[in-house]
C-alpha cells in the first residue's frame, strides 16, 4: 500500500507544460482504448492522467509507458473532455528529461526563455576561449579555409570531448531512469529476458511504432526524414573526421559523401518543415508545443542552415564565411550540449525504455 502525497506544484507544472486542463479528466479510459500502442496489461495513458491529476511525481518519473507513446494524438482527438492526454504524456517526458539529466542547471536554462541568452552564451564563450587559447581567434587572410580558423585536429578533439562528456553525464541519468523503471514496472512472472537490442533497433529503424497511429501520418514521414537525415549526417561527419586525418580535406562538391551530406540537409529541412507546419496549423492533432520544443527545433534548423551556408561560403569565398562558421559551431555545440535536456533526449530515454519494456515483455 502506498501513501498518496499529492504534489500540486508538480501537477501545475504538467498543466503548464501541456496546456491541458488535465484536472478535467473523468477517467473514462477512451484514451487507452483508442491508443494503438498501449499494451494489453495496464495500458496507458488513462492511468498516467490520474497520476498527473493527483501530482504523483514518483509514479510518473520512472514510467516506461510514456516512452512507448509516439505522440500520434489519437487519444487527444477522441478525448471526450478534451484534456489532451498526448500533450500531458509529452509534458511528463519533458519533465523527465530535466529530472534525470545532469547538471540540473543546464535543464533550467533551456526550459525558460528568460535564460536563453545565458544558454547561448555558454557555447559562444567556450568556443571563443578555445580559439583564443589556440591563438586562431581572428579572421585568416586569403581564400576561405576553415581549418585556418579552427584547426581540424583541435575541432575534432574538442567537439568529440564535449560530446563524450555530456553523454557520459546523460548516461548516469539513464542509469537512474533504468532503476526507477524497475521499481515502477517490475518484471512480471516471466522475468526479464536478455536485452532485445536487435529487436528494438529494428523497431526504431522501421518506425513500426508510428504505423499504428491513425491521426498523424505526416508525423511519421517527418520523423523518418529527420531520423535518417541525422543518421546520414553522423556518418558523413565520421567520414569527414577520418578524411581530415587521411585525405585531403575539405572534400570536393562531387565527393559522394559531400553529396550525401547535402542530401541529409535536404531531408532534415523537409522534416523540420513538416513538423513546423503541423505544430503551427494542426494543433488539435499535434497538441501544444512547449517552448523547449520550439527551441530545439530552431537550433536544429539553424544548425542545418548554417552548415549549408558555411559550405556555400567556402565555394563562393564569401567574406562572412568565418562568421557563419562560428555561428555553425555554436549551433552544433548547443545541440550536443542541451540534447539530453530537450525533446531530443528521447533518443536516449525512448531507446532505453523500449529496451526495458521489450525485455519484460511489455508491448
Amino acid at each position: 500500500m502506498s501513501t498518496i502525497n499529492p504534489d500540486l506544484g508538480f501537477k501545475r507544472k504538467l498543466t503548464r507544460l501541456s496546456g491541458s486542463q488535465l484536472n478535467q479528466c473523468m477517467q473514462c479510459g477512451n484514451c487507452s482504448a483508442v491508443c494503438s500502442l498501449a499494451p494489453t496489461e495496464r495500458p496507458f495513458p488513462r492511468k498516467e492522467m490520474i497520476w498527473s491529476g493527483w501530482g504523483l511525481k514518483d509514479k510518473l518519473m520512472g514510467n516506461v509507458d510514456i516512452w512507448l507513446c509516439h505522440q500520434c494524438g489519437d487519444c487527444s482527438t477522441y478525448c471526450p473532455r478534451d484534456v489532451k492526454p498526448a500533450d500531458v504524456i509529452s509534458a511528463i517526458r519533458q519533465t523527465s528529461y530535466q529530472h534525470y539529466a545532469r547538471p540540473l542547471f543546464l535543464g533550467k536554462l533551456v526550459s525558460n526563455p528568460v535564460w536563453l541568452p545565458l544558454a547561448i552564451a555558454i557555447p559562444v564563450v567556450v568556443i571563443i576561449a578555445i580559439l583564443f587559447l589556440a591563438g586562431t581567434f581572428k579572421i585568416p587572410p586569403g581564400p576561405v579555409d576553415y581549418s585556418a580558423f579552427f584547426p581540424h585536429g583541435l575541432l575534432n578533439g574538442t567537439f568529440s570531448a564535449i560530446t563524450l562528456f555530456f553523454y557520459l553525464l546523460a548516461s548516469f541519468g539513464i542509469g537512474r531512469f533504468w532503476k526507477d523503471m524497475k521499481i515502477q514496472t517490475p518484471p512480471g512472472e516471466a522475468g526479464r529476458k536478455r536485452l532485445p537490442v536487435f529487436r528494438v533497433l529494428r523497431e526504431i529503424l522501421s518506425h513500426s511504432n508510428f504505423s499504428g497511429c491513425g491521426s498523424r501520418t505526416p508525423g511519421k514521414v517527418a520523423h523518418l526524414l529527420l531520423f535518417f537525415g541525422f543518421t546520414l549526417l553522423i556518418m558523413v561527419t565520421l567520414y569527414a573526421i577520418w578524411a581530415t586525418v587521411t585525405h585531403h580535406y575539405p572534400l570536393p562538391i562531387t565527393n559522394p559523401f559531400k553529396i550525401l551530406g547535402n542530401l541529409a540537409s535536404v531531408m532534415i529541412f523537409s522534416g523540420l518543415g513538416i513538423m513546423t507546419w503541423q505544430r503551427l496549423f494542426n494543433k488539435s492533432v499535434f497538441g501544444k508545443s512547449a517552448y523547449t520544443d520550439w527551441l530545439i527545433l530552431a537550433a536544429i534548423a539553424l544548425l542545418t542552415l548554417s552548415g549549408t551556408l558555411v559550405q556555400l561560403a567556402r565555394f563562393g569565398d564569401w567574406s562572412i564565411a568565418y562568421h557563419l562558421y562560428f555561428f555553425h559551431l555554436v549551433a552544433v555545440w548547443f545541440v550536443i550540449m542541451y540534447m539530453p535536456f530537450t525533446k531530443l533526449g528521447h533518443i536516449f530515454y525512448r531507446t532505453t525504455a523500449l529496451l526495458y519494456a521489450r525485455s519484460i515483455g511489455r508491448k
Partner: protein
Amino acid sequence: MMEAGEIHMALAVCSGCDIGQAIDIDKLTDAASEAKEGLSCIKHNTLCSEAGLAELKRLVLEKGVDRLAVAACSPRVMSREFEMDGVQVERINLREQVAWVMEPGQEDTQMCAEDQTRMVLAKLDTIKDGTPYIPDQLSSDILVVGGGIAGLSSALGGARAGYRVHLVERSARLGGYAGRIYKMLPDSENAATLKEPDLHDTVKELEEHPGVEVYLETSIKSISGEPGNFIVSLENSRVSELQVGAVVSATGWKPYNTEKLAPLGYGSERVKTLEEFEQFVQKEQIPDRILFILCAGSRDENHLAYCSSYCCSAALKQALYVRELNPHAEVYIIYRDIRTTGFQEEFYKMVQADDAILMTKGVIESVSDQGDAVKVIVSESLLDDRVCINADLVVLATGMVPNTTSDLQLQYRLGKGLPEIEYDFSDSHFICFPYETRRTGIFAAGTVRAPMDMELSREDGAGAMMKAIQCIESVKRGEAVHPRAGDISWPELYMERCTDCKRCTEECPFGSYDETEKGTPLPNPARCRRCGICIGSCPERVIGFADFNINSVSAMIKAVHVPDEFEEKPRILVFVCENDAYPALDTAGINRLQYSPFVRIIPVRCLGSINKVWISDALSHGYDGILQIGCKPGDDYQCHFIHGSELTEQRGVNLKETLETMMLEPERIQTRFVEITEHREIQEIINEYVEEMELIGPNPFKSM
C-alpha cells in the same frame, strides 16, 4: 307511449367491418327480440357513418329509448360517436371479439354473437341510472404539510392558480433544509457560480399572498373525511380545525442515521456529515486537507440500498466553497460513480476546473483518526490497488431518508400515513402516474416521495398541487379520479344485510372504508377509485355500483344459452379485466388471431371485483369452465388497482377447495395474467384453456 318508470330498450346492429359476413344479422336481431320483449332493433351497414348515426338518433327519439345496446365494434373505438344524452349505452363487441376472431358463417360464431348480445341486453335490464356522489360539504381549500422547498413551491403554485392554501410547518420557520444551507448549486441563468440561498423571495411572496395561510410550529392532530371534505385538526394553532378538499404532504427528509456510520469514522471530531459540514463552514476555520467520501451509507444493502441522488452534486458544491473559503485547501473526493446527470455534467466540469480538487473512484476500506490526521485507506482506487490518504477532515456524503408521513395522522383504518412502496418512500408504483399514493386526494411531494435535489423538489411540489386541484374539481363533478377518471358510478351498500365481516374495509386498496368499533363499514365514496374490489370481497353481496353489480353480472352469466352436454359445445366464461386484458383481446382481433367460439366474455373493472357468487352462478348454469384474465401481480405488479390480481389468486385457492367439495375439477377455474401488448399470448391462453376443458369434459351440473 311508454309509462313512466318503464324502460325502453333498443338494439342497433352494425353489419360493416366483416360483421355482416361473419354473422347472420337477421337471426341475431330475432334472437335478441326473443330474449327481450319490446326491443326495438335497427340494422345498418355502417352504423358509425353519418347516415347510420342519424338513423340511430331518430330511433332513440321516436321510441324514447333510454337503454341502447350497440352491437358493432369495441367500446374502445368510436366512443364519443355513440354517446347520447340521457341514454345508457352499452356496446357489444361483435367486431374485435367475434367477427374478426372466429370462423365466419359458422353456427358457433353465430351462437357466440347471439349470446354476447343477450348478455348485454340482460345487463341493460338490470343496471340503474347512476347519480354522481358529491359530498355535502365541499371545500376547495388545499392543505400543504411541510414548509420546505417542495411545500413552498406547492403552496405558492396553488395560490397563484386561485386556490386557498393552508401551509402547516412543524418548526418555527419556513424553508426546511434549503433554508439552512450555506450555498446552493448554480442555476441555469448563472451557471458559473454557486448561488446564495434564495428562498427569501419565495417565502416573502408566500407570506404576502392573500390566498395562503401559514401555520408555524403547528402539527396535525388528525385528518379525517374524504376528498372535497377533509377535516383537519391542528395542534398548537390559532385555528383548531380546517376543512380542506385535498392534501399535499411535503414533509421532506432527514440525513441517514450517523450511528451506523462508525465504520466510516463517524464519531471522531474530524469526521462530519454533509449536513454538519454545511453548518461547520458557516462557523469554523476550514483545515487544509478535506476528504469527501461519497455514497456514505447509500447504494449499500446494509445501509440504504438506493441512490440518494443529491449527494454527488452537494459534495461537489461543498468542495468548491471549501476552496473559496480556504485557498490553501486541497480537496480529495472518493466516489463510486459521479452522478451529475443531465446538465449537471457542466457543474462537474466546473468543479474540476479547480486543480486542487482531486477525485478518484475507490472503495473505502477504513477511516481512522490518528490524532494529527485522519487516515483513509482506499482500495480498488484508480491511483493504485490500495492506497492511504491522509486528511485533516473527512466529510461523509450521507444519504437521504424520508420523513414519515404518519405525521399526517390520517384517520384511515389502513394507517396514519401514506403507503410506502420501497425504502420508506411514499412514491407511486406507476411510472406513468407518479402521483399515485393510494390515498385519493392526498399527494406526496418532494423528498418524502423520492430522493431528489432542490430543483426537482420545486417541480414536484407544483405537480402534486396540480393533482390536488384536479382531485377537488373531479369531486365537485362527482367523478372518479385516475384511473377511471370521469366515472360517476360509486359503490352503494345495502347495510341491512351487512354482517360487519370487515372484508371490504380490509381489501379496499385505497382505504375508502372506515369502520365503526363494531366493524361496520363506513364508506367514503369520494375516496373510491371505482375498482369494485369491494364487490368481489363481500360474501353477503351487499355492495354494488349502479351499472356494475352482483345482479347485472349474474344476469349476463345467465343470459347465455348453454347447450346440453351431448352437443359437445362447451361454454367457457371469460372474465376479462378492462384495463389491459380487454385491449389485448381487441388487438388480437385487429390482428385476426383466431380463438375458440365457445368463450363468452364479460369485462370487469378489475379481476378483484369478481364475486364468488358469479362463479357458482356460472357453474350451476352449466358453463364448463371459468377463465379470469387480468393484469400481472407480484412485486412489479401491473394491476391498476394495486392488488386486485393478487386477491384473485388468493381467492382462487379458496375456490379450488369449494370446487373439490362440489366434486368438480379445480382446473375448471383458472386465472391468467397478461400484459397489454401480449395479444398473441391471450389467444394462446384462451385456446389452450378451451382444449383443456374439452379434455376434462362437460360440467356435470349442465343437465341438472
